[in-house]
């Protein structure tokens, strides 16, 4: 059994209009997505801003009111509030936020920030609690004197590590990392990511790693889902996605990864333009009449793509993927 099973998840925001302010339409932030997260893995959820990936993450951690569909954890549907309460769900599923400054209460000291989940879920004695907080700080590589400081006294990278420490405090099974490094300098990004990896190794935590940056995702994730306009367009292993992308949207994202090798800049630019041209020309092939992605079809045991079956097969064989 997977750690988390997301089935046909939908999150729609109503649009009210008209004289009586009735619901006349809805914004489909997340429109029927299905995937599983296994214990101990890092699952990447990738898409441009507005694709619904953050909403998905918030639904999984219980911050978002789900319109329909289910999220199973230990066989219980945690989209229902009472199930979350019964399970002490957030003890096991935690979150790291994108904006490290806004995610730490500026009026609280680091000790109180990190201890917050402990106080609600673990009820340790005062000394045990403080010890645990110190250990957590140590794990994310911060000095013990951080305990009594306030968030604004730290750099962005340090703050994000504090966010990581808070998320790890209750020793959860899954952490939703919502663009955890995209607000950081490149040099600091790697540092935070390495801490996250280290913690994963030592504590056996799974991540749902949400990002728009396929470069970072490649560094972190085993399995990846690509999200576009509220739907999944491609699911696969790192190998599938990076070496055999099938959907044009995935190809575009991949082409957008900055090339660090200066010598190949021209070639990179050419391939990016080629992908862009295909996208312009063949939109109708990859999206249905309403501009939405098709349902997913499986092309290999690990790899699915949102295309009509025939096209998917044809593309897959072009890419030279071995059919099951």
């Amino acid at each position: 059994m997977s750690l988390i099973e997301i089935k046909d998840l939908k999150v729609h925001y109503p649009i009210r209009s008209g004289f009586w302010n009735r619901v006349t339409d809805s914004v489909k932030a997340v429109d029927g997505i299905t995937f599983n997260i296994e214990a101990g893995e890092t699952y990447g959820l990738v898409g441009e801003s507005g694709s619904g990936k953050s909403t998905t993450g918030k639904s999984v951690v219980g911050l978002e009111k789900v319109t329909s569909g289910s999220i199973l954890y230990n066989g219980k549907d945690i989209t229902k509030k009472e199930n979350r309460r019964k399970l002490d769900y957030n003890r096991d599923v935690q979150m790291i936020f994108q904006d490290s400054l806004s995610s730490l209460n500026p009026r609280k000291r680091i000790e109180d920030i990190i201890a917050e989940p402990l106080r609600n879920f673990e009820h340790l004695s005062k000394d045990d609690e403080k010890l645990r907080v110190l250990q957590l700080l140590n794990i994310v590589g911060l000095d013990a004197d951080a305990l009594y400081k306030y968030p604004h006294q730290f750099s962005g990278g340090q703050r994000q590590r504090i966010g990581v420490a808070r998320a790890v405090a209750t020793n959860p099974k899954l952490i939703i990392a919502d663009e955890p490094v995209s607000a950081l300098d490149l040099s600091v990004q790697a540092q935070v990511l390495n801490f996250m990896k280290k913690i994963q190794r030592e504590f056996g935590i799974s991540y749902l790693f949400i990002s728009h940056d396929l470069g970072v995702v490649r560094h972190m994730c085993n399995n990846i889902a690509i999200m576009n306009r509220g739907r999944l367009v491609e699911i696969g292993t790192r190998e599938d996605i990076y070496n055999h992308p099938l959907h044009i949207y995935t190809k575009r994202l991949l082409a957008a990864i900055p090339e660090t090798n200066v010598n190949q800049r021209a070639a990179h630019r050419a391939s990016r333009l080629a992908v862009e041209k295909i996208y312009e020309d063949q939109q109708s092939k990859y999206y249905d009449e309403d501009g939405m992605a098709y349902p997913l079809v499986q092309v290999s045991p690990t790899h699915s793509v949102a295309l009509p079956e025939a096209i998917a097969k044809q593309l897959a064989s072009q890419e030279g993927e071995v059919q099951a």
Partner: protein
Amino acid sequence: MWKTILRRVMIMVPEVIILSILVFLLAKAMPGDPFTGSINPKADPAQIKHLMAINGLNDPWYQQYWNWVVHLFHGNLGNSYQYQEPVTRLIAGRAGNTLWLAFFSMILTYALALPMGVFAGRHEGKLPDVVIRFYTYVTYCIPFFVILVLGIWIFGYVLGWFPTTGSVSSDAQGWVQTVGSHFYHILLPGILGALFSTVNIVQYLRSEVIDAKHSDYVRTARSKGVPSKDIYRHHIFRNSLLPIAAFAGYSITGLLNGSIFTETVFSYPGMGLLFVNSISYRDYTVITALVLIFGLLNLLGTLLSDIILSIVDPRIRIE
């Protein structure tokens, strides 16, 4: 646009109904009855009972309320027990005075606030700005009735520039003199009311002007060599015109609510003074009618402001 207004009005309906019930019950709950004092003090209790009965004051409250509402829709608010005349006529006689005073104050408010706001913003940090900010600070802090009392003392009594009581001089003859006298009487209370209600507009306009001064389009205009007088008139002032107009609704409700104080201090026969007098006489019918009217005026004032604002800022319309 029309939908917004219509919906606002629809929300107002239950508010008015609840207000009318509330007001009616509160007036009923006031101790004493209008008869005990008003007729012969030696009147026999049986006669008072009889009077209560024929006036329907012994019925259950909901029945009294219903009768009142039915009469209300016939334009009949009952009779004043104190003045022995229909409430509608009584109030109609006073409403004019109150509304004239309020409108006059409002016109003065704008006449004072607009130049002050622009001037202060234009000379930000310099002497005029400091003076005007001090002025807004003083008028904002000091309670209205204290301003009124000090005002009538200095300008009405000590300097003797203005009349201190009534709405028109009794020896005014012919309509020219009458109108003149009326105007003379509302001059001082009107000015004091205006001083009191300029604060918001001055502060808003000042900060608008300061913001606009540093905005790109004004800089562009300046660098193109547009004279600064024109910049203020055509670029900055015109932009903030509608939000400022929206203050009209709020300031008129403020002025109306202040009328109780204004009219008491100046013994000015308007609705506010009528209310204060009616309270002492337990004149239910007048009290209920006045509270209801002031509630409605409050609603209309805020509605006016909201409508103007919704023209300015479409985001408000969706809400």
